Structures are given as structure tokens and as C-alpha cells.
């Protein structure tokens, strides 16, 4: 069949978008390679590649630079991988939550997962007396448990209220306040050290993250974001009309809200249980991606994932380098870095070339 001219034009635009996505991923790899070399012990990209090849060929222990290689392989690489996994996950979750609620101000944290996770961490630190930070298993489990519990609560309320998009936002916001009050109550009774530990946790940091933790994070992020991608057309339909019209297109909006919402929350809970609260990426990355590729979720989801990864990676590196040897938590830096970027995008208008 002879293709219409429009068909070819559309095909060309999709080709440009795929190319842009490939370039973005290449940029992530290249920048990652550069970011690894930065830090208290500076190295070159060559050392990084040699370290990886030494690991792969099994000659790590015998080599002369084993200590340097280990810094790269066991400290910097997992940290970078964690930034990428968390960036992709939070950004994809943000896009998903904005799509199911039809509200551009929503982030994965709107439904209260972050305050629930913080509440869980507070329980572990204050009530159970866990002291060490950075992926202590009890803290992770408590944070994750509370975040998932919060998600279940929100969805029970919403299901009773008919699964409308307003009910998700309202119930989530209410839950957010409830868990914040819980955390405050615990902090009221905490001693000085516990208090500082709790506050530290809420900054959100990638300090001392191990391969095992990155692995668990990726185990949630990869399947959840791939599953979200399968809802792309349903998201598009939901963005373009009210629920009745969406049902007329063969999509059940309530079912999409439950499934995609839970996938987003699960992914977010898994990430912030390890890293602490890294806000803002989930809100801003979808918007930056939307500025670039427009509202088609088939492209918006992968683009915002890539933007999220890039943003967190850059923020973590800046936080590590700017006041070295002090490391500023990534959760703080990402806002300092993201807000000017975002404002600039709002002011300079939309980039047309991929839309």
C-alpha cells in the first residue's frame, strides 16, 4: 500500500525522537564516565575502563592499582548506578502519576509516600533505636512498609470514592499530612542524635550505597517502568478527555488509575527507602521531557526517565565536588540545579524540533 505523505512525515518525526533518545542515553553514559573520575581521589576515564575490564577478566586482586580500582568499582560505580536507577524510576513514576490524575502538579510524593517513608524511617530510628544510616536494613524495611501501607490506604479511600482523579490527589494529600504529623510526634520524643539521624534521612542521599542495594532498586524500577510504558496509549487517551470519552475508546480509566498508580508508588517506595526523600525529580523531569517531546506518553515516558537519570547524576556529582571533601546530599542539590533549569525552560518557551 502506498503510504500517505502524512504517514511519512510522522514516521520522520518518530525517527528524530528515537535518535534524540539514543543521543540522550549516549550522553548519560559519557557523562557517567566523566563523573566517576571526579571526587576526592581524581582518576582518568582510562582508569575507569581498565578497572571494569580488570573486574571482567578477573585480574582485579592481582593488579597493582587494586585499591584505586576498588574505589571505582565498589564506591563510585554503584553510586552512579543508583543515581541512574533512582532518576529513571522517580521520573517515570512522576509521569505516570501526572497521567492518571490528569494534574501537572502531581509528583510521586503527592500521594504521601514520601512522608510515609519518612515516618517509617523515624519509627526505625526513634522507636527501634537503629543508629547507622545509609541503607540500614531495618530503616529500609520500615520506610518501605509504611510507604506501601500508605499507598494501600490511599487506594482503599479512592476505590470507595469511585477512583476519580480528584479523589487520588485529595486522599493522598490528606495521608501526607497524617504521616507528617506522625513523624513530628516521633521527633518530639526523640533525643538529639536520633533527631539528627531522622533529619539526615529526609535529605535524601546516595552516600555509601552498595551494589546489592542498587540491584534491589533496579529490580523494582525496571519492571515497573516497562509496565508503565505499556499504558502509554491509555495515558494519551486519558489526557485528551473525561472518563466517559476514555471508556468510549475502550480504556477503563479506573483500572488504569489503580494499576499505573500502584506501579508508580511501588517504584517510588522502593527507591526512597534506600535513598531517603529525593523530591522534585519526579515533578520536574516529566515537565522538562514534555517541553522537549510534547505530550505523547509513548515518548514522554522514556524521555522523562532519561532526563531524571541525567538530573540526579549531575546533582549527585555537583554535591560531591562543589564543597569537597564535604558531600552535599543529592536531594538538596537537585532542587538548586533543577529550579533554574526549569524556570529557564518556562521563560525561553518550548523547543519545537521534536514536537
Amino acid at each position: 500500500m502506498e503510504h500517505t505523505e502524512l504517514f511519512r512525515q510522522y514516521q520522520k518525526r518518530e525517527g528524530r525522537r528515537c535518535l534524540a533518545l539514543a543521543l540522550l542515553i549516549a550522553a548519560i553514559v559519557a557523562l557517567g564516565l566523566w563523573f566517576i573520575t571526579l571526587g576526592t581521589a581524581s582518576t582518568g576515564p582510562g582508569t575507569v575502563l581498565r578497572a571494569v575490564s580488570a573486574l571482567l577478566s578477573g585480574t582485579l586482586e592481582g593488579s597493582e592499582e587494586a585499591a584505586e580500582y576498588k574505589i571505582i568499582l565498589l564506591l563510585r560505580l554503584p553510586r552512579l548506578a543508583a543515581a541512574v536507577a533512582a532518576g529513571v524510576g522517580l521520573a517515570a513514576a512522576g509521569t505516570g502519576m501526572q497521567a492518571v490524575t490528569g494534574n501537572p502538579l502531581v509528583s510521586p510524593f503527592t500521594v504521601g509516600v514520601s512522608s510515609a517513608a519518612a515516618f517509617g524511617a523515624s519509627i526505625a530510628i526513634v522507636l527501634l533505636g537503629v543508629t547507622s544510616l545509609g541503607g540500614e536494613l531495618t530503616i529500609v524495611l520500615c520506610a518501605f512498609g509504611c510507604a506501601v501501607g500508605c499507598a494501600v490506604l490511599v487506594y482503599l479511600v479512592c476505590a470507595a470514592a469511585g477512583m476519580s482523579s480528584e479523589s487520588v490527589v485529595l486522599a493522598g494529600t490528606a495521608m501526607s499530612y497524617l504521616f507528617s504529623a506522625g513523624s513530628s510526634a516521633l521527633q518530639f520524643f526523640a533525643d538529639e542524635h536520633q533527631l539528627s539521624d531522622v533529619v539526615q534521612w529526609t535529605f535524601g542521599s546516595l552516600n555509601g550505597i552498595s551494589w546489592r542495594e542498587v540491584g534491589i532498586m533496579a529490580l523494582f524500577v525496571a519492571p515497573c517502568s516497562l509496565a508503565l510504558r505499556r499504558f502509554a496509549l491509555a495515558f494519551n487517551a486519558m489526557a485528551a478527555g473525561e472518563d466517559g470519552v476514555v471508556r468510549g475508546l475502550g480504556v477503563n480509566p479506573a483500572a488504569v488509575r489503580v494499576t499505573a498508580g500502584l506501579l508508580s508508588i511501588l517504584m517510588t517506595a522502593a527507591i526512597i527507602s534506600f535513598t531517603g526523600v529525593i523530591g522534585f525529580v519526579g515533578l520536574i523531569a516529566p515537565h522538562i521531557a514534555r517541553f522537549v517531546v510534547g505530550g505523547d506518553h509513548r515518548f514522554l515516558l522514556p524521555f522523562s526517565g532519561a532526563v531524571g537519570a541525567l538530573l540526579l547524576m549531575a546533582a549527585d556529582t555537583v554535591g560531591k565536588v562543589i564543597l569537597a571533601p564535604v558531600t552535599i546530599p543529592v536531594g538538596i542539590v537537585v532542587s538548586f540545579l533543577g529550579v533554574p533549569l526549569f524556570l529557564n525552560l518556562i521563560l525561553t518557551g518550548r523547543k519545537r524540533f521534536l514536537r
Partner: protein
Amino acid sequence: MSLQVEDLRFRYGGGEPVLDGVSFAARRGELLGLLGPNGTGKTTLLRCVQRVLTPCEGRVLLDGRDLWEMGLRQRARLVAYVPQGVHGALPVSVADFVLSGRTPFAAGGRLSKNDREIAFTVLERLGLKEFAFRQMGALSGGERQRVLLARALAQTPQVLLLDEPTASLDLRNQLRILELVEKLARRERLAVVLAIHDLNLAAACCRSLVLLGEGRVQAMGTPEDILTPESLRRAYGVETEVVQARGQTFVHLLKAPVNVKNEL
């Protein structure tokens, strides 16, 4: 060969029934116009036919097949709905919007070549080619109505339901969109049901009319039969003059004589 609506009943919550046993049949290839004052349930009726509103009672058959028995997706492949408008300034391009009409056919969030081919053929046929990569928010009312129609046609439906397709359009666009729908109905053998307020347009374009009132069908038949001063007085409470000329039915609205003394 037709769309049969049998004894449709619906009420919102526990309130008064909006539809209280509505039955009619729409032949393929023709337009059937739903008339009636505001709030008589024209939109509700369209949404019930599509079973977007539940629970409604009754039966809707397409060529003898029960539309309500099938799943959401299956039904969306047969019945398409054109809403009165789109809300807000959508951040979606026209091409992507029309492509979303292929949602009931796509699996796993992917669109096939065939899906694109169908959607873009519809776009070109409706003269929307030059708008394809514009944003929905940047279109005029007439263009937007055509895009909504294009999305419905991209569903390759057998039944087309339109909710006041001419509501916010100028005279030229009103006629244009209805002529377009008429042509499509004839060519694709679609059963078309449209809710419409403009009696003259309805008389010009619809082969049969259904006059709704108080949740029931008050009258049903050809424009000449339905549009009489008596039936319009009963339905709308207004005085009209109905003229048959050039093979068309024209309804003129008569203003009640203003009695200044009584008003004051």
C-alpha cells in the same frame, strides 16, 4: 440492518429516571436526529447506547448483535462517540489526538503501521492535513470539531454517536460538518445518531427524528411528520411557523407579542 435501542432506562443515583423506556431504531447510511429541550437526556441517551453510563437497563442491538454483552474494548471497535468539545488547551498534536482513536485496536501501548495508515487517511480525507502537527489548543472551533470527528472515524466504527456537533460553530461550519457526516454515513454505511438543537439543520440533514421529552419518546418519524407547530409547542413551549419549501422543512420561531402593561 440497523442500530436498535430497546426500552432504555437510566437514573442518576437514586433520583428521578432520566430515561424511562426509550426505544427507536437508526438505519445504516442515514442520520437520526435526537431532539428535545435541555435536560431531556439526549447526552445521557448517547452515553447509555455506548454503555459508558451504568447501570442502565434495556438493550442495544447492532444488526441483531447485543452491544452491551461485549467488552469495553470490543464495543469501542464498533461504536464511536464525538463529544461536544474538548476541555482546556490540550498539549497534544492533532496527529496524536486522531491516533488515539486507534486505542481499541492497539496492544501493549504500541501502534501498528496499519493504525497509522488508517488515522492519517482519515485526517487527509477530512482536510486536516495541514493541521496534523499543530497543537489541539491552537485550532479554531470548526477545526477542532473536525478533529474530534476524525478521531471517532479512526476507530473505524459501525455506529457514530455525536453530541451536538454544531453547537459552537458558525453557519458555514455547521453545514459543513453535517454534510461531511451525511456523506460518511452513506459511504461507510454507518448508523449515525446525533443530538441536535437546531431544528432547521436537523430537518435538512436527518432522515428521521426522535423527539424526547420527560424521559420518553414523544414523537418519531420524518422531519415533516415531527416538526409541526403543535408538537413543538408541546415539547418546547414556543410558538412556531413551519414552512415546507424547496423540499425542505423550515421552522420559524415566533416571538410572543410583548405586552408592556402586563410586564410592568
